[in-house]
Every structure is written in structure tokens, then in C-alpha cells.
């Protein structure tokens, strides 16, 4: 990725490999934790699941940044802070990773719009099934859920910019 841009500081040392490999993990965990430390007692679940968003972005934009099995431990942390029953993100995020792998075998040349489409499907799947797991069917949360899905999908380009920025800082070490 850094080969396509002008390198203004060619003699700067890249990050050590350990730290470069940890950065994607740290960014996803931090995004999950934002939900838990944001000082708002919300009446409605409108906050986008930032951990899921960053995880999908890392997977679609820089696929070797996270191991194929990284979704399960990252989902476990998200479950501990998100309020969903423990195991729901572990399961859903792992299924997303497997599904993206299957798509990648068939759709080898992807552009940004197809990435966005894949992310849309994954976000809608995770949020809808997560609602179905966590809440009784009679709960009146479906319009809010739709709004939450739309907000999260609309944040994908921003997440791509953020991940691309972090990935450029990481360098080619990892």
C-alpha cells in the first residue's frame, strides 16, 4: 500500500514487527471498548458496533493484518463489554470471516464498492441475528435496529480511511 504513495520520510524506521502485528488487534479492541466507556446512558441502541466495523474493514482492506481465527478472540472481548449474551459476537464474527473467505475465492478482483457491499451484508447479518439472539421477538426495537444498520454502513468509508491510515503507519513489517 505504501508503494503507491510518495514516501516523504524514506529513512524513517518501520515499526518493529511485534508492534505492527499488534496494531490491528489493538485498534479493534479499542473500538469495542469505546462503546463501553462512552459516558452516555442511552435509551435507544443507535450506537454503531465500532468493533465489528473495524474488524470487517481490516479483513477487507488488509487481509493479512489479522489471522483467519482472529474473529473469535476479538468477538469474545466485544461480548464482554457490549451487553449481548456472551458468545454471540464470537459466533457471528467468525461466521463473517468464513463467509468473506468464501466470497474471496469467487470474487478475486474487488473494488471499494464491492467491499462496501460485502461489509453491508456482514453488518446487517450480525446486527439482525444479534437482536434475534439477545431480545425477545416482541421487543419494539426494529426501526431503531434499521437506523443502526444504516448508520454503521454509512460509517464504512470513514473506517476504511482510518484503517488505511493505520496500515500505512504499520509499514511492510507485518
Amino acid at each position, binding site marked *: 500500500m505504501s508503494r503507491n504513495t510518495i514516501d516523504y520520510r524514506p529513512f524513517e524506521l518501520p515499526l518493529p514487527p511485534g508492534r505492527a502485528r499488534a496494531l490491528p488487534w489493538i485498534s479493534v479492541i479499542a473500538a469495542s471498548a469505546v*462503546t463501553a466507556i462512552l459516558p452516555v446512558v442511552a*435509551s435507544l441502541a443507535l450506537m454503531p458496533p465500532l468493533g465489528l466495523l473495524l474488524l470487517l474493514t481490516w479483513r477487507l482492506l488488509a487481509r493479512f493484518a489479522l489471522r483467519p481465527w482472529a474473529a473469535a478472540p476479538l468477538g469474545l472481548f466485544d461480548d464482554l463489554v457490549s451487553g449481548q449474551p456472551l458468545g454471540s459476537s464470537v459466533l457471528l464474527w467468525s461466521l463473517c470471516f468464513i463467509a468473506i473467505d468464501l466470497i474471496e475465492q469467487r470474487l478475486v478482483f474487488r473494488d471499494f464498492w464491492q467491499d462496501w457491499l460485502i461489509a453491508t451484508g456482514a453488518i446487517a447479518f450480525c446486527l439482525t441475528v444479534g437482536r434475534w439472539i439477545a431480545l425477545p421477538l416482541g421487543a419494539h426495537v426494529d426501526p431503531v*435496529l434499521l437506523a443502526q444498520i444504516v448508520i454503521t454502513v454509512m460509517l464504512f468509508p470513514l473506517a476504511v480511511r482510518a484503517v488505511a491510515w493505520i496500515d500505512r503507519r504499520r509499514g511492510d513489517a507485518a
Partner: protein
Amino acid sequence: MAPARDRRTGFSRRRQYSAFFGYVLAVAGAVVGAALLAASIFNPPAFSTARMAVASVTAPVASLLDSGTDAIASVPQAIGTWINVHGENAALRAELKRHDALLSKARVIAYDNRRLRGLLRVRDRTPEPVLTARLVASTASSGRRFALLNAGRVQGVTPGMPVLGPEGLVGRVLESGPIAARVLLITDPESLVPVRRTRDGLPAIAAGRGDGRVDIRSVGAANVRFAPGDMFVSSGIGGLYAPGVPVARVERAGSDSVVATPYAPPDAVDFVIVERPFMPMPPPLPPRAGPAVSPAAPAR
């Protein structure tokens, strides 16, 4: 994006095995997730220790951010009070709200008096507060409505304690960690609070809807009419919440099940009072010594 041909691992056994086990682990992660999910659905408090351990780290950060936000939010508030009308308006509103609570309380007292006169003996207890704390964060991305309280077992908060705001009932403590606790708000879809109408003591259930309001459902009697403005207070049935705490007010007329607004909307509450359960669960029976001891033995 160019395709990544990482499945062609070449002749290196190490790369072949690591690629293979990567996918094995990915599928295993999904399987473990399904198992964890089944465990936590059938036994919801199963992983509360892990959750509360993480919450003990996030709660101090959240309370720091919370007080920071409060400080920033107080600047425009301070400017606003310079404008006389604004301050007067706020004072009048506060007074109205105070009187509202007083009125509902007075109605409850009148009803209680009427009822108690008919009874010979009533065990009555005044709920004692455990402490005052802050709601610092919530599960804003999940449909469940939990809030994080910045006090835990060290401060004496244990599961089952009711949580009250200045205007009314907020919820109850569901899990408690060392310095943080998770509060189930009354607007959560799984929350049920036994209530009664202040006017005539009609029993009902306040069930959370998940969208910041509660459903008032009548208990027992069929074809019950609810009028807009009907006030509901906790009834004390079940022994968890003390009777007479304001819970919700009916929005629109209806029968049997109507939508009501809580008196203490959780997004407007900052400080809350944690109380002891009104009638705590009786201590568990001592284990029997053996099959030889029969229940009829002391009667002889």
C-alpha cells in the same frame, strides 16, 4: 484489489500446516462461539465474573469521561443562567416536577392509609439506602438496556438491589463486580416491575419495550381502561422494590396494555440511589442432617 494467492503455499510444510490450522481454528472459533452462546442463553449469569472484571477497568475510565463531559456541559449552562428567563424557567420546571412527585406520593399515602386501616397488622419496613453513585455508561450498541454503575461489591452493591433516580425507579442491579455493577434498566425488554395505579391501586405490570418506554399491562382483570396521565408506582409485590416509588405515566388511552413513559428516563439521570431489597430473599434452609430426620420429628 489484486487477489492474494495465499492458498498456494508452495513446498514449505510449515506454511502448508500453518495455513491449514489457521482455517481449522477459524471454524473452531465459530463452534466455540456457538457453545458459549448456548451456555449464556441457558444460564445468563454464567460469565458475570469475566464481564464485571472488564467493567472494573472500563468503569473508572467512563466515570472520568463522564465527569469531564459534565464539566464541559456545565459551561453553557453557567452562561445560560445569566439570562434570567432561562434560570427562572428551569426553577419553575423543577418546582413543577417536585410537586408532581409530591402529588403522586400523597395519593399513594392516602391509598395506603385507607388500606392499612382495614388491616390489623402490617409488617412495614422503610428501605435503607446503600449508597449514591453515578450511572457512567451503557450498552449503547446492543438492544439490551444495561447501564454501568461506578460502584460495586467493595461499596456494598450486590445483585438484586433496586436503583432509584431522583424522579423514580431506574432499574435494579443485575451483576456486581469489585468496583462496578451492571444495572438492568426498567426499559429493557426483559425487565418486569409490578406496579399499581395511584388512583385506585389497580395492579399492573410495567414491562420494558426496548425503545425507552414501558408497556403497562393489567394483571388479573380483563378489559381494564387506562386514561392518559394515569400514574403508576411500584407495588412492592415480589419484595424487590419498595412500594410507592414512581415508575411510569400513561401516554395515550387504551385498554389492557398501553405505552407509558418512565418518570426517570435513564439518559437524564446522572446520580442514582442504590437501596437494599425491600424484602430480601429468606436465607436458604439449612441442609438436612440425613434421611433419618423427618419433618414430623419436632412435632412430637
